[in-house]
């Protein structure tokens, strides 16, 4: 299936190609890719600090590549970033294995106080953000909360959820998008 991707190069990206305004380009790249890079790396390395290191190094290399015009087609930028992050993670993993003994000793001494050790992604969400999300959830209609719980916490398949709610899959998708939209609006209103 052919994919249509609508990419609009901004002034900042144009400046990227010209090798100027590095701060703006860095902000653009960071805004767009920082979180997904952290998620990508945290899943592999299971360590928030390591994930942030990988994200930072990936963005640095992407910025450098843009300034040196090594990314000829902006449509290729996401794939370039993905591949760069993947390579850095592999390298990071090899380096980490050299320190495996020390890491194991370190981890053995850690106290497990939550489930975050088994879910490396949720460790990426800092406490202030959690408080904002928690507050937003409390202001949501109960049906929205129940739906989000079924979708993202209980791990039910869409078909199961649709059956439980007595709706067709299309209606479920609409409800999900509305619930996520309401949540985003509430987070925007309650976040510090």
């Amino acid at each position, binding site marked *: *299936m052919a*994919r*249509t*991707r*609508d*990419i*609009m190069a*901004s002034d*900042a*990206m144009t400046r990227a190609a010209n090798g100027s305004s590095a701060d703006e380009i860095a*902000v653009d790249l960071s*805004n*767009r*890719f920082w*979180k*997904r890079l952290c*998620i*990508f790396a945290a*899943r592999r390395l299971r360590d928030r600090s390591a994930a942030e290191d990988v994200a930072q190094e990936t963005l640095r290399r992407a910025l450098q590549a843009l300034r040196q015009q090594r990314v000829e087609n*902006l449509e290729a930028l*996401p*794939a370039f*970033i*993905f591949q760069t992050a*993947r390579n850095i993670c592999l390298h990071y993993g090899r380096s980490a294995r050299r320190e495996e003994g020390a890491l194991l000793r370190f981890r053995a001494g850690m106290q497990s106080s*939550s*489930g975050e050790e088994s*879910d490396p*992604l*949720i460790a*990426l*969400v800092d406490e202030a*953000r*959690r408080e904002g*999300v*928690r507050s937003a*959830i409390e202001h949501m*209609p*109960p*049906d*929205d909360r*129940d739906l989000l*719980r*079924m*979708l*993202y*916490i*209980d*791990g*039910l*398949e*869409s078909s199961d959820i649709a059956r*439980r709610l*007595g709706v067709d899959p299309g*209606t479920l*998708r609409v*409800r*999900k998008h509305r619930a*996520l939209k309401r*949540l985003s609006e509430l987070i925007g209103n309650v976040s510090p």
Partner: protein
Amino acid sequence: MIGNSIISVDQNCRYSDEDDVLRAYVAGRLSESAAEEFEQHLFECDRCAQEVERAVELRSVMGRREKQSPLLPLAAAAIVAAVAISLWQARPREASLTPPPLRGISGREIMASGRLVDGVFTASWKPVRGARSYRVQIFDSIGEPVTWTETSKTTVSATIGSAPPGQTRYWKVQALDDDHIVIASSELLKIQTP
């Protein structure tokens, strides 16, 4: 947050409609090869990236149980642990492959009735064993929630006004346990007017 200066939308995102893959990724339930394939897409699709970020945030909040009180007696904790272990050992083998059912959603039905008189909605229902509170919700004609309330009683009365001409409103009541989990529910009922 997605930057404003570069907008990338995969118009034919195959994961937006079949979002089980996205949610399995967030839950760490995809195989390595499937996860990597999805991640490649994730870097190209801002919509999926936003949903993944939001899902991670939700899991960081909703996935956490309330913290245990440090004053919980050790003996009680031991009993709870023993019961939990015995239940876990006695579970059907396939239970580990499927998520636990939502308690009561399809099992226990609340018998309820309600009516709207002069814009005031009054409802009552039969008590449910184990219920700590009841949640009453009002919906518009397309199933969007209009308002809701919670009560420890088995009756409720609230001014909700009349439905817009030609539209019907619906309601339901759910019973919640101590953990605020739904343990029983009425059917979706049409709001009767005299």
